[in-house]
């Protein structure tokens, strides 16, 4: 028989430094201003798919319930449309908070339940930083195979069409001098909200 | 008009408390039975028992008196004076065949719009249960049994003293 459990949250469940760290990330400085009006949740085109509404993510982030927010699917469903950010009456960079939380989740090595977006972002990042440019064909194929192998074949028709219209190729795109980018990335200090940074 | 019997309650409300409470009930959009006809007086102490008897005689099914709570009277004790009259009047009316539910004295302060509504609804329900009093018809029919010989005009003519 299934049991319904609701845990009490103790102060020890909170990371008291978490909110401060997030607030030091670009665009996140107004996090504490939130009055929980939930405009963000209302305007978000994807909030119905989220296990926590953006409002609740903001609340938990602000309160330092780090584990809860880093494990939610909300941050990965965020399509970066910035609608919430634009409408927020307190000018909180909600999309930026989502970016910050995604970075923190990755930093913490959290593998989300809904893994596909993170996989895509990783593929993209790896390709982009390695070659300096994105080879869309490679990116698409890699991501689909890694995240939705079943769909691979159903996309066959689309793939053929794209090939026919010349919008899809196997060629790996590269910037002429990748080394300069690599050097720049390596020389870039991280932006992670930690006070030392 | 709806088919259901709607009793007629003549309500004497004091200006400072119950009339104001009735205003408040209105402002608060409380809905209550459309049974009352309010006569405003400055104080429940103004209410002459004749008014109440007259109300019954003119067709009221019930009479509701609303005054300030004891101690709250705008004129110190007008409500207590009303109560003194009311106690003996209600006793007398029972002897005259008028059920005690047909006459009510309630202390309803200016802030008690809700109580006003409750009282009117409760009293209306009581009166529906009791049925109409209908005294004007009764008073008319009282004289149905007596002899009628002359018309008024004839009498008038006869009694005219030269």
């Amino acid at each position, binding site marked *: 028989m299934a049991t319904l459990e609701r845990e009490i949250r103790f102060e020890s469940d909170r990371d008291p430094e978490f909110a401060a760290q997030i607030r030091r990330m670009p665009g996140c400085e107004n996090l504490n201003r939130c009055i929980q009006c939930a405009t963000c949740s209302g305007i978000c085109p994807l909030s119905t798919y989220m296990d926590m509404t953006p409002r609740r993510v903001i609340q938990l982030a602000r309160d330092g319930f780090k584990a809860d927010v880093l494990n939610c699917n909300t941050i990965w469903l965020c399509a*970066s449309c910035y609608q919430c950010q634009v409408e927020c009456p307190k000018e909180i960079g909600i999309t930026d908070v989502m970016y910050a939380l995604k970075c923190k989740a*990755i930093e913490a090595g959290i593998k989300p339940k809904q893994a596909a977006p993170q996989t895509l972002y990783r593929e993209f990042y790896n390709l982009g*930083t390695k070659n300096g440019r994105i080879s*869309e064909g490679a990116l698409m194929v890699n991501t689909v195979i890694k995240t939705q192998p079943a769909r691979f074949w159903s996309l066959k028709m689309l793939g053929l069409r794209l090939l026919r219209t010349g919008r899809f190729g196997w060629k790996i795109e590269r910037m002429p001098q990748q080394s300069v980018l690599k050097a*720049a990335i390596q020389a*870039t200090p991280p*932006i992670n909200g930690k006070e030392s940074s | 008009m709806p088919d259901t019997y709607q009793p007629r309650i003549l309500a004497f409300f004091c200006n400072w408390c119950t009339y104001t409470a009735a205003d408040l009930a209105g402002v608060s959009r409380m809905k209550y039975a459309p049974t009352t006809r309010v006569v405003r007086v400055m104080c429940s102490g103004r209410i002459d028992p004749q008014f109440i008897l007259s109300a019954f005689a003119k067709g009221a099914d019930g009479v509701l008196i609303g005054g300030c709570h004891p101690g709250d009277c705008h004129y110190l004790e007008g409500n207590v004076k009303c109560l003194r009259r009311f106690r003996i009047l209600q006793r007398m009316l029972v002897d005259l065949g008028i059920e005690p539910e047909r006459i009510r004295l309630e202390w309803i302060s200016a802030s008690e719009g809700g109580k006003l509504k409750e009282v009117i609804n409760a009293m209306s329900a009581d009166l529906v249960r009791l049925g109409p009093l209908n005294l004007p018809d009764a008073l008319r029919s009282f004289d149905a049994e007596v002899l009628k010989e002359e018309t008024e005009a004839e009498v008038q003519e006869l009694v005219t003293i030269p």
Partner: protein
Amino acid sequence: MKYAYYPGCSLKSSGRAYEESFLAVCKILGLEMEELDNWNCCGATSFMSIEQGPAYTCSVRNLALAEKKNMDLVAPCGGCYGVLLKADHYYADYPAVRNSVDKGLAAEGLQYRRQIQIRHPMELLTHDPGLKAIRSLVKRPLKGLRVASYYGCRFLRPVAPFDDMRHPQTMDSLMKTVGARIADYASRGRCCGGALAGSIPKMAQELTYRLIKDAQKAEADVIVTGCPLCQFNLDAFQDEIIASHPDVKPIPVFFFTQLLGLALGAEPEELGIQRLIVPGIKILQEKGILGDKKADEKKVPVAAGAQNG
């Protein structure tokens, strides 16, 4: 005038038609585009989600390259434009960003002083040659074509330097200038779900469906857009969307530069119109914008029908 042209990754593959049509239009209007040497991926939303330091460095690096050439940077891809614009702003606003980026750029001997502007073709064409100039060059007015402009997210949010964030008009003005009719609809700036198209197609397609539905409610014949990701997302998955939502009909999704080019007299092939997944030629022929032998014969009744519609 010469501009630093930043194609971004998509304009080299899935958005080829955009590059083709944009450059064709620039040629007609006399705008000179010089592709930036050794440009790199802007980072899009992905870099930002993984590591923010490199994300900003990658973006700003392209700006620094353009600045070095002393040219404004033209980024036709909506995604690139948005990311570069945001990077520019945040570089200015956040010392943490500036600190990281400056150190990153220094490795290549670059620096950025915010001396250039980041331009999008939509705004560039509206201002630099200007609508008047464009109108004077129209050869093939888009008469009778009802166009729904789809702006997507990134021209508008989080900053919108050239248009109204909540009811953008720039693309509509361009389309009106070349004779098209405008289908006004509320979803013009809503998210198409493009960011999730590759990862959670179900959700992405639901959002796309709403846009197409809304545009068709406004009696749009075609959709135009200025973002290769939006175009791809709206165009490529219509089969799947219609399969689950039969209440929408296929609708061609053009790059606005394609229609602009047509109106200015370029030929469809130069503009990559054949590259659309939902074919766009037919509607243009039906409306009499493009000549077609068979259509020419039926021209009168079709035009009448279209007017009635």
